[in-house]
């Protein structure tokens, strides 16, 4: 009776995921971010329903070019008479997919490499993986991405690859560090003792216990991947026209800064809000997964 009372409500029966979700739900910023992401994802998925690609997004009406925001075009039109709002809606597809796919590439490669490097500490496997990581990490991300895109040619897939590849070192390092801590735990010893295969130990016992730092890094990395991707597009190394990638919309609005600043304002806001949402969720997740960090 007395004992039960003493068990703090925090520890009352709830799965770990449930516990994290409970903490996350209390974080208003994270929930707002999550809501924005869900809305953006819905917009991206249903972009085809919302706007017609051929007429609204890439169809040009030159007589309507460079119109300031009005009732007909709430965000105005661009230099080829295309409705900026429609293009922004469709552009969510590119920004989100580039961010997500790029990070997915980085996660798959980075986590596997990181797990092996962390598990086979001290061996040649770790040496090779970590030296390669050092080399990749030694080149500033943006430069690396630029060189890769320049070599492969500018298109959406290559954009994803280049942003993804430059994110790999972070995941290798994060995973390795997490694996190193987990590998020291006794249940891994016992798994080894009962003779489970090493691959099984890595993927079944170690990785699931390393998830929190990886999840946090994924969310935060998606946001920077979106910025990197739109930066590359801004430099003309991204999604080829006429696709309405936000970064390239901003870039094309650059020539019309004076007098037509709305052309850069709205894509800029769109990028910022998306990135902000991912950052807020990432922050919230970090706090929720690691209560120590919270005040």
């Amino acid at each position, binding site marked *: 009776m*007395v*004992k039960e*009372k*003493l068990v703090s409500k925090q520890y009352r029966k709830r799965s770990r995921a449930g516990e994290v979700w409970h903490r996350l739900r209390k974080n208003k910023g994270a929930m707002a971010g999550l809501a924005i992401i869900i809305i953006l994802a819905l917009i991206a998925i249903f972009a085809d329903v919302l706007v017609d690609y051929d007429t609204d997004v890439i169809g040009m009406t030159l007589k309507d070019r460079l119109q300031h925001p009005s009732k007909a075009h709430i965000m105005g039109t661009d230099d080829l008479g295309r409705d900026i709002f429609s293009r922004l809606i469709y552009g969510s597809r590119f920004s989100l997919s580039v961010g997500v796919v790029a990070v997915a590439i980085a996660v798959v490669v980075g986590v596997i490499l990181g797990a092996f490097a962390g598990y086979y500490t001290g061996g040649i496997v770790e040496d090779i993986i970590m030296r390669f990581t050092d080399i990749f990490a030694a080149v500033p991300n943006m430069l690396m991405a630029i060189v890769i895109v320049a070599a492969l040619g500018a298109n959406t897939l290559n954009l994803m690859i280049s942003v993804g590849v430059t994110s790999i070192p972070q995941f290798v390092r994060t995973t390795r560090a997490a694996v190193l801590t987990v590998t020291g735990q006794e249940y891994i010893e016992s798994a080894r003792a009962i003779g489970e295969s090493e691959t099984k130990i890595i993927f079944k016992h170690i990785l699931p216990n390393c998830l929190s730092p990886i999840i946090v890094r994924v969310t935060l990395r998606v946001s920077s991947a979106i910025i990197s991707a739109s930066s590359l597009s801004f430099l003309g190394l991204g999604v080829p026209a006429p696709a309405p990638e936000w970064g390239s919309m901003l870039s094309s609005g650059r020539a019309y800064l004076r007098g037509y600043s709305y052309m850069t304002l709205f894509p800029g806001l769109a990028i910022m809000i998306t990135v902000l949402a991912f950052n807020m969720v990432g922050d919230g997740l970090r706090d929720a997964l690691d209560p120590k960090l919270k005040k």
Partner: protein
Amino acid sequence: MEKNKILLDVNHLTVNYELEDETVEAVRDVSLYIERGKTLGLVGETGAGKTTTALAILNLIPDPPGVIKSGKITLDGENVLEKSMKEMTHIRGKEVSMIFQDPMTSLNPVFTVGDQIAEALMIHEKLDKSAAFKKAQEMLEIVGIPGERAGEYPHQFSGGMKQRVVIAIALACNPQLLIADEPTTALDVTIQAQVLDLMKELKKRYGMAMLLITHDLGIIAETCDYVAVMYAGQIIERGTLEEIFNTARHPYTEGLFNSLPNIADRKERLKPIPGLMPDPTKLPKGCAFAPRCPYASASCIEEMPEEVHFGGTHFCRCNAYKNPEFRIEREDIVYE
């Protein structure tokens, strides 16, 4: 003159920690006083509110979440709680010093120990840097550390040595009151004795009063003039060393003694107090000890016990004494 004998007087101090969705009543209506040159031992389990009481004296309770709800703390005739931040800095370290529980973490790792001692001197004695450092070296010698080690960093010292450094910091400006918050708990037993001896010696040398917080009755027996026992934020019994050790009145105090091993009879089983201290966010209406108390009656759960005085300085808070016949069934304990 009589009034001046009392150095520290804490009256009806109540401190809460106000968290997001709950309030911890850490200290509830605590009153205590210390005379000049005397030592008061404050005993109790972890979480009883001993440290909070001590921090309140220096007005160091972390705010938020800590709030001093009511009470008055008079130090040398002045109310500490009414002092401004700046005035407080003149009291801390000068009039009252404090030694903390864990010497491992109570020294700043990035400054040399000499600098850390000298800092107090520079603030209170207005010494310049080199003079302060010299004095710091002297202080180190006093606590038994070679003065030339003043240029070393805390991580180069062992736990016992660190606590000596902490003591040196505390005593650097000759405070009138030293608050020692479990000064030896984190140390090895052999080192404990050394540090304790050092403190006793220094106390004598400087004629300080001391508030010694501990849960170790042995230390109390060795060093204190008076003893106050805290439970769930309240002082439930207070008296001189002899009164408490020989004629403990409160069932909790009694329980504390009973849970000590008997050196004379090693085969005797320990008699721990059953149960745990109540959740400080949900204290019962009546006596906080009632759920664990072998003597508890129905009224104990309902009524908050009053202080019952047993002449002179000895009192306890227990409803059982409403019955004048009540006595604790006491076993003889030989304790030295």
